[in-house]
């Protein structure tokens, strides 16, 4: 009986967090034997969809089947047993086991793993030796053999990804689901990781990847599915999807027709005043030994709007988190009005008049909206009244949200509350991490108009933003990061019409794979 053409079929899959709908996919099919990539801007619900399919997160509604059998009711380990093995963005390896043991863990139906057999060593000694040899050969393929006897905890970020992939292969899965396999992997390892994925596919394992690096997606994917705001907005070959206007808009924001385009404000003579915030050659990261930022420098002058762009994993968010002491700054310095503030505690920065709105979990869920705003004015309660009027005037919807629990708000409402909270004390410097994520187009307009407005009051704003196009319209200057380094910089106007920005996001790139230097930027229309 010819096997089903589709290995994985899902219909009507919904997942909600309170009022916020993270995933709402009507139909999703994955062809057997293919490499399918799942792309989309941050917060599009890719990871949530991934977790629901693999059984690690219960769905609010919907059914999906694997290799013909319905699995939506099965727990995660039973789904994995059927051959659907997934990896994790932050690698779920066992640090206190050796590398070899980690790989051997992957094998299916190992004789010694049932308790009855475990008690009688002869029952599994021989099989264990064969398993070890098999594991060693997998390690050879991944060039980790020399580390087989060391504890997995000593591996670097990239090596951990390789180990997790090797372990997944030991289970000989029918479908391998990879959650951002390339995130945090240094370039030298990326290509070998890529080859392994392709090699696995050749040996008959279908692969579903969540990945941001468009260049990789185009190189290896047979089929690409793009998600935005929980829905699938485009499907097809890599070329079709990357040129699909809906996808480009999801990534870069709507390309405004000429008329709508506001006169670029960027043309004001760039005042050479001292920078209010200067980041110099910063190296930062979270896990020991894994540097996300590998030497990035940014300057922000008073009453200036600076945008920081680049594909996901380029280190945009890490830059803001490093400034605010949430990520570890390992080298380089940060100056505010000339004084060094590297590594200073967050609350001290707020006292110096620097506001910050993180990308995720940027509201206090159990507290009401009003209480969230009061937290914004924590340092000087006497300015509470003035601050409240200021933000409600900026964001009228705040009035009716007053007593609601922040946790029950929709994505857009949360974003507004987070922004308002950071503005309560009218900070001189504002760091915004993807302020437009999850907002309706109308709301996005409002946010960008508002950012342009406060700039006039002398506030310096540093924005990390996916919605590159719309953001560039109001930016004086923009920095484009790629793999933790400054790729190139330019005024808002230059970058708005620069092909490279689009290519960087959507991976359509000319021959050389290294990021283009500022000097050879093409000026094609």
């Amino acid at each position, binding site marked *: 009986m010819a096997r089903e053409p589709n290995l994985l079929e899902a219909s009507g899959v919904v997942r909600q967090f309170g009022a916020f709908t993270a995933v709402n996919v009507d139909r999703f099919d994955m062809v057997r034997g293919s490499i399918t990539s799942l792309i989309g801007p941050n917060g599009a619900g890719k990871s949530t969809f991934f977790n629901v399919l693999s059984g690690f997160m219960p769905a609010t509604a919907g059914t999906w089947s694997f290799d013909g059998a319905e699995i939506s009711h099965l727990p995660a380990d039973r789904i994995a047993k059927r051959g659907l093995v997934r990896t994790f963005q932050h690698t779920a390896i066992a640090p206190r086991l050796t590398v070899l043991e980690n790989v051997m863990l992957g094998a299916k139906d190992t004789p010694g793993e049932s308790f009855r057999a475990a008690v009688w060593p002869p029952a599994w000694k021989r099989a264990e030796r064969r398993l070890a040899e098999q594991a060693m050969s997998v390690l050879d393929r991944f060039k980790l053999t020399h580390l087989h006897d*060391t*504890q997995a905890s000593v591996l670097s970020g990239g090596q951990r990804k390789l180990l997790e992939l090797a372990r997944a292969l030991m289970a000989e899965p029918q479908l391998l689901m990879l959650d951002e396999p390339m995130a945090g992997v240094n370039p030298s390892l990326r290509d070998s990781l890529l080859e392994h994925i392709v090699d696995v596919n050749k040996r008959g394992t279908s692969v579903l990847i969540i990945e941001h690096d468009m260049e990789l997606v185009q190189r290896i994917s047979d089929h690409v599915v793009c998600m935005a705001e929980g829905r699938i907005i485009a499907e097809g070959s890599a070329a079709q999807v990357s040129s699909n206007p809906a996808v480009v808009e999801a990534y870069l924001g709507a390309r405004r027709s000429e008329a709508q385009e506001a006169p670029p404000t960027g043309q004001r003579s760039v005042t050479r005043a001292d920078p209010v915030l200067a980041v110099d050659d910063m190296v930062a990261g979270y896990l020991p030994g894994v540097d996300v930022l590998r030497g990035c420098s940014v300057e922000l002058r008073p009453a200036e709007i600076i945008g920081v762009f680049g594909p996901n994993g380029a280190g945009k968010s890490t830059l803001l988190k490093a400034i605010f002491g949430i990520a570890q700054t390992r080298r380089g310095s940060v100056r505010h009005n000339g004084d060094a503030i590297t590594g200073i505690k967050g609350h001290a920065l707020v006292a110096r008049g620097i506001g910050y709105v993180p990308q995720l979990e940027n509201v206090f869920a159990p507290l009401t909206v009003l209480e969230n705003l009061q937290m914004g004015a924590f340092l000087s309660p006497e300015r509470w009244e003035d601050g409240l009027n200021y933000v409600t005037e900026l964001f009228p919807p705040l009035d009716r949200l007053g007593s609601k629990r922040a946790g029950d708000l929709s994505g857009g409402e949360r974003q507004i509350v987070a922004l308002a909270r950071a503005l309560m004390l009218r900070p001189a410097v504002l760091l915004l991490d993807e302020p437009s994520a999850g907002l309706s187009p109308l709301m996005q307009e409002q946010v960008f108009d508002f950012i342009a407005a406060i700039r006039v009051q002398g506030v310096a704003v540093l924005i990390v933003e996916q919605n590159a196009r719309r953001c560039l319209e109001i930016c004086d200057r923009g920095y484009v990061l790629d793999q933790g380094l400054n790729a190139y910089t330019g005024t808002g106007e230059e970058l708005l019409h620069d092909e490279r920005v689009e290519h960087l996001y959507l991976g359509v790139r000319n021959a050389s794979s290294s990021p283009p230097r500022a000097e050879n930027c093409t000026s094609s229309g």
Partner: protein
Amino acid sequence: MHNSTRFQPRAAVTAALGLCLALGTGLSTAVGQASAGELKIGTLLPMTGPAAQFGPSMLTAVELAAKDINDAGGILDSKITLVNADEAGDANIASQALDRLLSQGARAIMGTGSTSVTLSLLDKVVRARVSMCSGANTGPQLSAYPNQGYFARTSYSAVLLGPVFAQMAIEDGHSKIAILGRGDAFGKGMSEAAAEAFKAAGGEVLATVIYDPAQTSFDSEVQRIASLKPDGVIVIGYDERGKILRSMIERGIGPRNVGIYTTGVLSPEFWKSVNPNDATVLDGVKQAASPLTKGNDFAQRILAQKPGLGTTQFAPEQYDCLVITALAMTASKSTDPTVYKDHIPLVTKGDVECTNYRDCVSALGTGKTIAYVGPTGPTRLNASGDPTTALLETYAVDAKGVSQPVHQIQAKMP
């Protein structure tokens, strides 16, 4: 499991080796050989743990007894030195402490403070062939234990003391009583014995409520008894009785309108734990216990020996334990437990009655058999070390909170 961590086997092995070497060399001398003229007596009493409030009173009694015995010339011309250990109300710790006392050459063990700890040690005591005597264990379970004479107790078994409460209630003409007992060997045994005796005499026991000693509040139990409107209430417990009596008096089961009968002699300050502002609060509460005013008013001597003692509960009984053991050694002219253990019951039921160690020793000197009657009163221990008779005194608390003796009651067992 090849863990490549920095485990230093060398350090572990050298430490263990060093210890063995130190012990191996030159340790052939017999352990704890008592030098001539010094007789070691071990005490295993509850200095910590749930029964911690009785430890100091019992230890002081043993110290007082040792002083009296040494003043009277000691035992077979060697002086008693005490070796103390804490049983902490924990079987493991008590067992380890008992090992220490035995290794230090204790010829007799005074303790323990609770029936459950004694039960957990008896097997070891019998196998180690050492004599143990407790003034606080009242659990009936101990009578049935085949202790081959190595265990004796001067505290009255619940079976003996329980009916005395029934009699006190009957004498006051009560026909419907309730009993509130602590949920341990002491409380349960006494409650059941009292209830049986009262029913046998034709009375009606409205309720026997057993409470959990670790309980923090007793209001609902007292309320249940109050609602049954008894003529009299028997309360069997330790120092939580302060809370219980307060709760009873507040709920109208006061000492005047409803008879209150409780165990042990309440210390002169006990009323403070019921109502620190009113000394007359316990006026009329009746108790039954070993006589305190036997000649030298034993409680004052204990308090003189160690001022600031919270209670003198079980002090008379523990005092008699040591004296009886000493007399048994003197009578059997040997400090070897296997020999003197059989004399322990005999020295309490001989012909000549004597009330202190000095007189008893001189009586023994003239070849007569003696019946020692100490502050606990006559005990006449039987073969399994239980007192068979009890000369009890009933007391009533006066207006100043001091327990005045009323009359004596002779309780007998076969």
